[in-house]
């Protein structure tokens, strides 16, 4: 009898041990509670384009390959990443071939095939559809399926960096069967499909309350039978960043909260409760001050900030542009407004590390009031009786705009004080973000119109390749009335040398050469003062101490590896 008991106890112990050794099973860790203070509007990123929608949908629908936390491409639905070396990318750079993993199933149990990828491309490029991710499919001539497991993409012209269509959270594959009748103008009508897309990801939408809360359950047909560890996900939306941080860090009601845009000292007090931690990742976001190369004098009326207005009376002087940068103490701005979520920078392409230049760090990262004053003095800008420098009747007094946001307004104040030290005056103004970034050609307050001397905001590029981004500073991309204010060369920088180099980059396939060229272009922009890069901005989120497996990712969706998340035992 005693032996039997011992034996039983031993078996139980062995079972328990075996259980832990075999790693978590699917759906054993209960509910994962995520908080997005900007609520999710739809689960179809092709109809929205907002970051919150892209992130939320990444738990359900997946691309062929995605970026990991280091910015490297990892296959998700395919066997490997096609390259020149493995023959996946054609020698003439005009096509590439993806091989789908065997036995990948949609959450409804039907097989995932190349037809779905072809359909996704057609869906996003259909006229009148207003696809928000159309740029991902730019330059794609056709998508074909030589067999159900193979996807062949043909480009209109050679693409040295072909990873855009079906790569990353912005470009996931949707099911043909579900969306077949939702192409083009009919897309918004398919509410059910847009709210509950069938996917290949670890979770399936069970209930969707737009702009409020999404309930997801583990996908029974997910390709890894041991994942996801959580049985369900509740993604709640609404509120503000500070209270979202509180719900994770202080009260512990939630496991994960996205985008903690909260003053560093507020976060520090919340952290004292010991319920959560902060995670940061740096992608490609740079807060910068654009310097207008054209005259923005209000007296010019509709002509201001266009080619017709002529060069800016003072900002066209390279010495002024350099001095404005020298006068700024980036460390103070970083400390006051960004904390862990920012680093001082002098690059417009701050990452990935292989693309980040260090050439200008020596002169640019350190504040040098004396040097800036000398530079202006030598260039003939003399201080007037009011302490503001002037030359030939032109005063160094600038209209400085940005979007309404407490960190930006604080930064404006700091920069104004720093510029005052070199005899430069600034008039501060801000416009609501939805107006400033709205791009309404009728509004005078958009960042594209740039009816100001200097303006500040953040921009970045998707993925890890900066080619398209660097092409924004081409001469023919200057916004103006002739193109409906649609160019992306906001500072109105124009240098034929730069254009030539961008052209070379678009023809270079060799990775190390591309890195070299990108750095050169980035350095040119900083040295010639197209803009003043200020802060390399990271993404900052918080998660509960009981949550394991979070790998903060700035190159893809933050929830990219939600299948690997688990509850600490």
């Amino acid at each position, binding site marked *: 009898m005693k032996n039997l008991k011992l034996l039983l106890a031993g078996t139980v112990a062995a079972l328990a041990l075996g259980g832990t050794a075999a790693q978590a099973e699917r759906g054993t860790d209960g509910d994962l509670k995520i908080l997005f203070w900007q609520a999710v509007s739809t689960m179809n990123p092709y109809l929205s384009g907002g970051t919150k929608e892209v992130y939320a949908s990444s738990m359900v629908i997946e691309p062929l390959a995605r970026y990991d936390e280091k910015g490297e491409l990892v296959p998700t639905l395919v066997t490997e990443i096609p390259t020149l070396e493995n023959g996946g990318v054609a020698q003439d750079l005009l096509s590439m071939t993806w091989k789908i993993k065997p036995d990948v199933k949609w959450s409804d149990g039907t097989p995932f095939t190349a037809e779905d990828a072809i359909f996704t491309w057609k869906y996003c490029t259909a006229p009148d559809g207003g696809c928000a991710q159309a740029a991902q499919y730019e330059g794609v001539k056709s998508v074909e399926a030589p067999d159900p497991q193979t996807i062949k993409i043909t480009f209109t012209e050679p693409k040295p960096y072909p990873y855009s269509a079906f790569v990353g959270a912005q470009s996931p594959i949707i099911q043909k069967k579900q969306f077949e009748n939702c192409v083009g103008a009919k897309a918004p009508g398919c509410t059910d499909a847009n709210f509950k897309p069938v996917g290949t990801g670890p979770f399936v939408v069970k209930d969707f309350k737009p*702009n409020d809360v999404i309930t997801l359950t583990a996908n029974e047909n997910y390709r890894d039978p041991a994942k996801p560890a959580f049985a369900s996900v509740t993604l709640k939306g609404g509120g503000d960043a500070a209270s979202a941080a509180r719900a994770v860090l202080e009260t512990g009601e939630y496991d994960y909260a996205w985008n903690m845009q909260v003053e560093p000292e507020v976060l520090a007090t919340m952290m004292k409760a010991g319920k959560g931690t902060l995670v940061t990742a740096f992608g490609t976001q740079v807060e910068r001050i654009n310097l207008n190369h054209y005259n923005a004098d209000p007296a010019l009326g509709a002509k201001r900030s266009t080619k017709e207005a002529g060069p800016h009376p003072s900002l066209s002087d390279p010495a002024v542009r350099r001095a404005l940068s020298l006068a700024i103490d980036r460390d103070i701005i970083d400390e006051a407004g960004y904390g862990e979520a920012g680093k001082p920078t002098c690059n417009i392409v701050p990452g990935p590390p292989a693309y980040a230049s260090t050439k200008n760090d020596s002169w640019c990262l350190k504040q040098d009031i004396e040097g800036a004053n000398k530079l202006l003095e030598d260039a003939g800008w003399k201080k007037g009786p009011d302490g503001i420098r002037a030359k030939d009747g032109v005063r160094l007094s600038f209209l400085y705009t940005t979007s309404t946001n407490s960190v930006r307004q604080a930064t404006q104040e700091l920069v104004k004080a720093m510029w005052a030290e070199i005899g430069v005056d600034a008039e501060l103004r801000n416009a609501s973000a939805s107006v400033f970034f709205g791009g309404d050609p009728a509004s005078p307050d958009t960042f594209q119109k740039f009816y100001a001397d200097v303006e500040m905001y953040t921009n970045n590029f998707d993925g890890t390749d900066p080619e398209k981004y660097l092409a924004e500073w081409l001469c023919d991309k200057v916004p103006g009335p002739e193109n409906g204010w649609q160019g992306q060369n906001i500072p109105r920088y124009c240098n034929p040398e730069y254009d030539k180099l961008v052209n070379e980059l678009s023809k270079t396939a060799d990775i190390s050469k591309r890195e070299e060229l990108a750095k050169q272009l980035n350095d040119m922009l900083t040295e010639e003062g197209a803009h003043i890069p200020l802060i390399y901005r990271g993404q900052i989120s918080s998660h509960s101490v009981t949550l394991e497996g979070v790998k903060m990712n700035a190159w893809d969706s933050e929830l990219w590896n939600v299948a690997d998340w688990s509850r600490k035992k």
Partner: protein
Amino acid sequence: MFTYTLRRLLFAIPTLLIISFVIFALLDLAPNDPTGDLPLTIPPEVREQIRASLGLDQPFFIRYLYWLQQFFINEPLNILERLTGWQFGDGDRMRVLSWATRSPVVDLIVQRLPQTLWVVGLAYLFGVLLAIPIGVISAYRQYSIFDQIGTFLAMVGYSVPTFFTGVLLIVIFSSYLQWFPSVYDTNLVVTDVSSFIQQVKQMALPVTVLALYNASQITRFVRASMLDNLHQDYVRTARAKGVKEKAVLLVHVLRNSLIPVVTVIALGVPTIFSGAIITEQIFRVNGLGQLLITAVQGADIPLVQTLTFIFAVLIVFFNLIADVLYGILDPRIRYD
């Protein structure tokens, strides 16, 4: 009275049409853009296509007529279809679609209405129930300790904004004491005692904040109106006739004092529907107020237009109810 009501109802039609036009025009003139919130990595050409797919490339007047048709013909037909099961035409009508969610605006409102009615409506009810006795006692015992404290609390409740009291209560009761949740769970369904308790718990803080605010407003009306009546001749007459003090106060004075108060309460009902925008946002109640504010921020014009118009309808309607109620409560007032 009936002809008066009918006349007022008919007059409401042109009023509402003008209101809808003004709202539409104002929203159109506002320098807001539905693509303004999108990441800058989405290029301008794509933004232009998005705007076109939303119908923004059409002229202003055409868009207004579309909205009129969708709101006044298509949506009511849809509701009728759903209620009766009848089919009008092919049933494939253009509905008012929200730009952000691309789903019918009416569905969104129906989804949000229960939260708002429960939380904000209950707070309004509690506010009224609290305000009347406090107002009555305050007036009857004017300048007593009770009156002084009541006046003080009403002033505090009225002047301290809900975004302050809300966060204060969260810090005390959610963060420090951990009695109540700080985030409202809209998925919670009351099925048994424990889920009912949970529902009460999550409603406690937002309802308290709003009830305090509503009560302090209404108490002042009750008190002022009671004071007016307490010094009237008929009160003295009643007392001289030997009517009991309780009857004087609750039958004679209170009834007469409530006439203006009922009007104030009726006029306040539309604010229940518009939701307490700030309080809903703080506690993430996600009712109509939160829906409106996200729509405004995201330049979701069809949603803002429809919501504000529904609020306008409610205000016009409750103004009428207040007027009619006035006539019923006070026999001296006749509209015909």
